[in-house]
């Protein structure tokens, strides 16, 4: 018994120490709005705790001190207008009192005006596309966790399933507005530390915003069940100081130019196959599978398929423009000319497909224009 009593505070201490690792509560986040939401949440939480203590306290006290074995007699009466009014008015006042700070926070959250940078975010099955409006920057961000880790063939990394190839980069201390939409089904863009969680709905544009003062890396996930790889389309936001952000902008623009130039050089089959495999693992593997056999009845196989073995024209068309009425997406904007040419070449020459021809990046670059 004494041990139990002594052990209890130790348990409390342990709970505080382990809180950082195993957080049950809402995160405080890193923005003014996220902290305000956290404070509001705690205020409401403590109000609920107080109500719980009072209500259950009175109930328990009544049960214990006015129990039948003590000789308590039920007081039979039907109505008491005063009591009924009291128990209606009191919750009403509590609700109004809670609505006042909640409304103030909501108004702040929905104030999308005066943004210094607009970024369009589009949800795809299963990746995100970021377009910096007015900056001509447009890229896709997909999961970069190696398949081996997912299949338990390798040790899982620190940011398992929370890492991407191209993170969203935003400047610190600037108001950034997000315009959210989706290409196929409903997704939801959620970064807990920024207190931004907004549905991305095809045909609609939702708005959200953030100002992050501290440079850093913040991670999130898709929060609306969107199909097979819903759990495999994380979000990584990298907040950079203004100077670093400007450098990043210049770097990305330069890289885009380099990619366009790369398409014009001549490629060998081996080079295209190597790049093609990388692209395939990133963009196609989720549905068509590593062995190219797809999932029968759901996603068609590419191995021995008439399209992959036939004339390159229809093969290029289906990869660039997708296939209406199926889950096959249009990869025209998602991949560069080099990546498209490489992956098509790969599909025509992998898993025992031996067409032997090669689709050139220059050919694709022409079609993309």
């Amino acid at each position, binding site marked *: 018994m004494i041990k139990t009593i002594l052990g209890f505070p130790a348990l409390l201490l342990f709970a505080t120490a382990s809180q950082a690792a195993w957080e049950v509560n809402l995160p405080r986040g890193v923005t003014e709005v996220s902290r305000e939401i956290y404070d509001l949440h705690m205020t409401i939480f403590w109000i609920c705790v107080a109500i719980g203590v009072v209500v259950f306290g009175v109930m328990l006290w009544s049960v214990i001190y006015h129990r039948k074995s003590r000789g308590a007699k039920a007081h039979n009466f039907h*109505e008491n207008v005063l009591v009924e009014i009291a128990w*209606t008015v009191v919750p009403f006042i509590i609700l109004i009192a809670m609505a006042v700070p909640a409304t103030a926070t909501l108004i702040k959250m929905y104030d999308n005006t005066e943004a210094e940078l607009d970024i369009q975010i589009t949800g795809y099955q299963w990746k995100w596309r970021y377009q910096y409006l007015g900056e001509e920057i447009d890229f896709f961000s997909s999961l970069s966790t190696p398949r081996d880790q997912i299949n338990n063939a390798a040790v899982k990394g620190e940011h398992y399933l929370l890492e991407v190839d191209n993170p969203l980069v935003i400047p610190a201390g600037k108001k950034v507005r997000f315009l959210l939409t989706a290409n196929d089904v409903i997704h939801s863009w959620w970064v807990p530390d920024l207190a931004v969680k907004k549905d991305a709905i095809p045909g609609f544009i939702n708005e959200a915003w953030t100002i992050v003062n501290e440079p850093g890396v913040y991670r999130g996930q898709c929060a609306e069940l969107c199909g097979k790889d819903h759990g495999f389309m994380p979000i990584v936001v990298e907040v950079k100081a203004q100077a670093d952000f400007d450098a990043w902008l210049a770097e990305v623009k330069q890289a885009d130019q380099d990619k366009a130039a790369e398409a014009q050089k001549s490629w060998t089959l081996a080079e295209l196959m190597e790049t093609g495999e990388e692209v395939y693992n990133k963009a196609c593997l989720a549905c068509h599978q590593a062995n190219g056999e797809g999932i029968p009845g759901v996603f068609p196989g590419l191995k021995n398929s008439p399209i992959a073995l036939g004339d390159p024209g229809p093969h290029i068309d289906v990869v660039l423009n997708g296939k209406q009425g199926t889950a096959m997406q249009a990869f025209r904007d998602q991949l560069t000319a080099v990546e498209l040419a490489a992956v098509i070449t790969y599909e025509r020459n992998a898993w025992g497909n031996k067409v032997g021809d090669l689709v050139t990046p220059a050919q694709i670059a022409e079609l993309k224009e």
Partner: protein
Amino acid sequence: MKAPKENRESPGLWSMLLSVLAAFFGVQTQRNYQRDFASGRFWPYAVLGIVMALSFVGLVYLLVALVLAQ
């Protein structure tokens, strides 16, 4: 609704208004309840109820406009 046809005076506008308010609130005294059902007619209460529901909507609308204007 079959109210007994007695020659009792039906409730005045003010007490009908209070009864509708009490209905909005969800609490009414047994005495007023008996009075309304014994001598009141249905339609005046229904009309009052609809008018007050609409004014409640208007009130909420105004309140939101006022809060957002700040």
